[in-house]
């Protein structure tokens, strides 16, 4: 079924919308959730929460790109769940490692008082992504949007683990420089 038809079903308040979403994007959402949570049960719960969130937001929302809309919802819900789950016992998992890696991108004199809202920072990152080649962009997004493991990225991109690591290292350095150039010193 076309995305526009699925969105129309949401607007019709037809529960079939969720069925069709599950059919078309269930595995996609699950893979994002499972990357973040590394738990089948938690990932399934996140995906169900995603469907519920989609149901509650359409209408009035009408996403331009349904897959991106669902991917972002799943990612946000899963990270929130990861944060709750990790409140007592911090550490472990792809998200923790990704956070440690990203910490290296934050300019050392980054002033917390001047922290932008995530949305504004996202605009800066959009600009940064436009400076990357398609291949670099895909590696970066697999790691930091989809939270895939190094091993999985290597397999999917058909390059070695060490190549992924070195590429990510270089991209992070460039991101750090880019953020500094944008005024985050």
């Amino acid at each position, binding site marked *: 079924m076309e995305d526009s038809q699925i*969105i*129309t079903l949401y607007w019709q308040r037809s529960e079939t919308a969720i069925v069709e979403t*599950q059919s078309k994007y269930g595995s996609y959402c699950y893979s994002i959730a499972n990357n973040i949570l590394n738990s089948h049960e938690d990932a399934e719960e996140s995906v169900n929460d995603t469907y519920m969130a989609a149901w509650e937001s359409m209408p009035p929302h009408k996403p331009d790109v349904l897959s991106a809309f669902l991917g972002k919802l799943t990612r*946000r819900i899963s990270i929130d769940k990861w944060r709750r789950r990790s409140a007592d016992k911090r550490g472990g998992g792809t998200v923790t490692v990704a956070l440690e890696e*990203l910490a290296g991108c*934050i300019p050392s004199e980054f002033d917390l008082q001047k*922290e932008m809202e995530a949305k504004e920072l996202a605009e800066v990152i959009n600009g940064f992504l436009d400076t990357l080649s398609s291949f670099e962009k895909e590696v970066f997004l697999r790691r930091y949007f989809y939270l895939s493991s190094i091993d999985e990225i290597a397999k999917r991109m058909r390059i070695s683990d060490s190549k992924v690591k070195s590429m990510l290292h270089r991209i992070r350095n460039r991101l750090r420089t880019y953020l500094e150039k944008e005024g985050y010193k």
Partner: protein
Amino acid sequence: MTAELLLDAIGQIDDRFLFVEASPRRISLRRTAIVFIAAILAALLTFMTAMAVSPEFKEFVYSFVNMKTQDKPPIPGLEEDSMTNTQTQGSTPVHDTQETVSPDEPMQELGYQEIDGMVTAQYFTTNGLFRLFEGAIYTCNRDDEYSNPVFWEVTSDGLVQHQATRVQFALPYGGKDHEIFFDYAVINGRLYEEEWPPNVGEDPFGNGWVCNSVANRTDVVWLQVPVLKNNYDFTRYPLLLDLKTLEVTNLFEDLPLDDIYVDWIWLSDDLSTAFFSGHKKVLNDQGQMGSFSDEWICDLKTSTMSCMTDVIELPGYWSYLDDNTLEKCIQDPDTKLSTLYRYDIPSGKTVKVFEDVNAKYILTNYAVVQNDDFSYWLLNLRTGESKKLDGLYLAGMTVSESPNKQNIMFASRWKNPEIDQFSECYPKIGILNTETGAFQILKRDVKGKLSESFYGWPNDTAVVTASSNGVSGFYIYIYEFTALQS
């Protein structure tokens, strides 16, 4: 904390950067062997007279004709204006319009008009659930029983009601009872079927059984049924269901599917050929069990099948175009230029249809191509001839081909954030007859809190859109471009 902010910010990047990859790319488990075989195949591969089209941008032009009269369809939320609007200057109302809509009627006609002698427009409303087929619309009530199932035959004189037959029974297959539930009707010798609600939750992707009609047959349908093959892996089988006896026959019964798990199936009209995507469970070099996706083409008469990777090694996935053709489009991630391959099932040969073309839409016989000067051209995939789509602004358009592949619809989508940032509708619907070159565009006055979708072709010269504001049911608009009929 700052890293978490960065992590959150990355979660809000532009949609354009994101991609969907539901199933993993096939990993080259037999890489050495495959590379070797692929090299031989590449050398031996006989690309049938590959057009390898480099579009010749000659000044052959499709010029469109704008109709003078603007269509003003009924719009949810503006009912008080809608029916007076249908009787626009230049139009000829044929049916009286109704002032009120009964909630008990599954489908009601709201109006009909002829526009400039080129288009007939029919307007309907329904409070039920609906689906569109080529030639018919299905509706049922929005209740727990999905009661009152009806197939509406689309004719130039309105909709003709055909009460549906409901099939409901438990099908024991693969160690489980599948609750089969669908409606069907035979209209003009063709069987239409619809399962509402779709079945869910059987396999890991939430997919249940699916019902499909069989071309030129009114005595059977085929069910695509998920079955647990081992303790935790599903496969699918195509089961031919006799509508009188409710007995099933597994069309994959004799295929050698031992270590192959079927994900999705396509069958040819005559049921002689099957194409399916699936995965194979094998041990990798490290002794770990891996799952590798691929596609297979099957001759059901001889119960033989070929893995498409063994036919030709190319990145990406094959898709089923029609009974004789598979296709694969590969886009260069940097240049965004596309290369299209088609596989001819009867001959087993692969054709490189075009290479490195800036194709915006790829249809069966044509591709819409953007030239360096940003003009749009229609590229004939059979002859290589290109014609300019003169003055057509394609950004945000919906492009669709008619069932006979001869006519192409170009419908511009429009949003008006001043009224409602979520409103979207089709202010222009154009249809091009590729054989005659006739290209007619209907302008429409569609403003308001409207969510409109394109629903397809009830016949080769008619298109359907439907709109809703989310609260007052659905409005269905059928536009028949009568002047394009040959």
